[in-house]
C-alpha cells in the first residue's frame, strides 16, 4: 500500500498555496497509509545561508538549543517536534558540531531550500501538526505510510534524505538494498536506518555526487535497484518520477501550464486548480519523467 504525492509548480503565483495543495493531496491518501506521514517542501533560498531541519526526540528543548546557538541562527521556525533554522553558510560547520553535542536534537535535513518533516500518525493530522497548509515553496513531495515490513517509527517514515536538498519517497519494496547499501558505504555514504528506501535515496545522492543529473541518476537506478518501486524525488531545482519496469505500484500524473503533479491515485489530484483541463496520464514503466527549474 502506501501513498505518495508530489507537486512541482511552474507558476510562481501558486507558491503561497503549495503547502495547502500538498496537504489536501496527503489527506486524500490517508487511507493508503494511515500510520505515518512525511513531506519535504522546497522554499526560497537565502543567499549565503543554509537551512537545517531539526527534530527533537524525547526531552528535546529547542529554546535551550537556540540559546546555545545564539546569533548563529539567522531565522528559525518551530513546527511541532521539528524546527527549521537558517544559518549563515560560514557558520554551518560550527552549528552542526553544537547540535551533534545535543543528543535530544537530530539534524534530519540540510540544504539551501529543503525543509523536511515526518511523524507517526494519520497523514491529515501530521500535516496539521506541522502547519503544512501555511508553507510556501516551489515544489514538494509527500508520503503516507502503511508499514508492512518494519516498525511504525519516525525513522521508517518517508521522505528519506541522504544529501543536501535531496529527498525521495518510495512506494514499493527493494530486494537488493543490503548489497547496494554495503557498496554505497564503501563509497563513503552513511545511513540512518535499515530501510530499503533510504538506500534508493543514497544511490541517487551518490550518482549525483559523481556529476550525474537527476534524470541520469534516476536512469542509473533502473540497472542498480531490484524490486518494486515508484519513486518521486526532489532536488533544489528538480522533480522526477520513476516506476519499476513492471509497474508494480499504481501511479498517475497530471500537468497543466501551472504545475506538474504526481499521485499514487487520481483521487489525490482531484482538488488541484485546473485539474479538469489538465493532461492526465499514467507514467510508463522504466521511464524517467523529470522537470527542472531554470
Amino acid at each position, binding site marked *: 500500500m502506501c501513498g505518495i504525492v508530489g507537486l512541482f509548480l511552474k507558476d510562481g503565483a501558486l507558491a503561497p498555496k503549495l503547502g495547502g495543495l500538498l496537504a489536501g493531496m496527503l489527506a486524500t491518501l490517508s487511507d493508503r497509509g494511515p500510520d505515518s506521514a512525511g513531506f519535504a517542501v522546497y522554499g526560497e533560498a537565502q543567499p549565503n545561508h543554509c537551512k537545517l531541519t531539526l527534530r527533537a526526540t524525547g526531552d528535546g528543548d529547542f529554546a535551550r538549543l537556540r540559546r546555545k546557538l545564539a546569533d548563529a541562527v539567522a531565522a528559525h521556525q518551530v513546527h511541532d517536534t521539528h524546527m527549521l533554522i537558517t544559518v549563515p553558510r560560514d557558520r554551518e560547520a560550527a552549528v552542526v558540531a553544537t547540535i551533534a553535542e545535543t543528543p535530544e536534537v537530530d539534524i534530519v535535513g540540510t540544504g539551501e531550500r529543503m525543509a523536511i518533516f515526518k511523524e507517526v500518525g494519520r497523514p491529515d493530522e501530521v500535516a496539521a501538526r506541522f502547519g503544512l497548509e501555511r508553507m510556501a515553496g516551489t515544489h514538494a513531495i509527500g508520503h503516507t505510510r502503511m508499514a508492512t515490513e518494519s516498525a511504525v517509527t519516525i525513522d521508517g517514515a518517508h521522505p528519506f534524505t541522504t544529501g543536501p536538498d535531496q529527498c525521495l519517497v518510495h512506494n514499493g519494496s527493494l530486494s537488493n538494498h543490503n548489497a547496494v547499501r554495503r557498496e554505497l558505504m564503501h563509497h563513503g555514504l552513511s545511513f540512518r536506518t535499515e530501510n530499503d528506501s533510504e538506500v534508493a535515496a543514497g544511490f541517487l545522492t551518490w550518482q549525483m555526487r559523481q556529476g550525474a543529473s537527476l534524470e541520469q541518476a534516476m536512469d542509473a537506478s533502473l540497472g542498480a535497484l531490484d524490486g518494486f518501486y515508484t519513486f518521486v524525488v526532489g532536488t533544489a531545482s528538480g522533480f522526477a518520477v520513476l516506476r519499476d519496469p513492471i509497474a508494480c505500484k499504481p501511479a498517475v500524473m497530471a500537468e497543466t501550464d501551472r504545475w506538474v503533479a504526481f499521485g499514487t491515485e487520481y483521487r*489525490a489530484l482531484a482538488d488541484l486548480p485546473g485539474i479538469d483541463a489538465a493532461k492526465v*496520464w499514467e507514467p510508463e514503466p522504466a521511464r524517467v519523467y523529470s522537470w527542472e527549474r531554470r
Partner: protein
Amino acid sequence: MPTIDLARTPVRKLNNALHELRADTNETHWRVLNPRGLHAVAVGIDAPVRVDIEGHVGYYCAGMNKRAHVVVRGNAGPGVAENMMSGHVHVQGDASQAAGASGCGGLLTIDGNASARCGISMKGIDIVVKGAVGHLSAFMAQGGNLVVLGDAGDALGDSIYEAHLYVRGCVKSLGADCVEKPLQDRHKAVLRKLLAGAGVNGGIDLGGFRRYGSARKLYHFHIDNVGSY
C-alpha cells in the same frame, strides 16, 4: 433520469440503488457526477440500464457488471470492468492496469490507451482498445478476444490458454507460449463485429491486424519446457 452527485452521496448509496434495479425498471438511464477518482463506482449492476459517469474513476469501476451499459467520460483506474459477465463498459479516456481482468463476458471498450496487464486472465470478455496496451496484456488469458488498434507492450499473451489477440500496431514482444497465427476470413468477420460493437465502423483495414494465440505447449507440464515456466 436519476442523477447521483458523488460529491454529496456516498458510493455505497449509489451502488445500493443500482443493485436494487430489476430487469423491468423504468429508471433505465443514470447519471453520476463528480466521481473524482473514487473506487468501486457502479460495481455489481445486474440490470439492462445505462450509467453515464461524468469524470475520472478510481479502482474497479463497473466490476462484475451484468447487462448494464456503463460509460466513463474520463479515465479509469486499475481493474475497470474486472470480472464483467455481460453488458458493455465504455471508457472514453485511458484505463489503468488490469482492465477487464478475469472478465467472463460482455464488451469493454477503451477509447484511449490501457496500461499493463490489460485482459489479464480474461475468460470470455471481449476487449477493444483503440490506443495501445501495456506489458503483460492477456496474461494467462483463457477465452474471449482482445483487439488493440495501437501497439502492445512486452510479453503479450504470456502463458495464454485460448483467447484470440488481434493487434494492428507493433508488438514489443510475445510472452511464453504466445505465437502469431494466420488471420483468416472468419477472424476478420469476428474483428468486424467487435469493432462495430466498439463504435468503429469502417475506415479500418482489417488486413492490417495480426492475430496471436496459444501455441498450446504449456498446457501440460513437459520436462522439455521447464525453462518456460
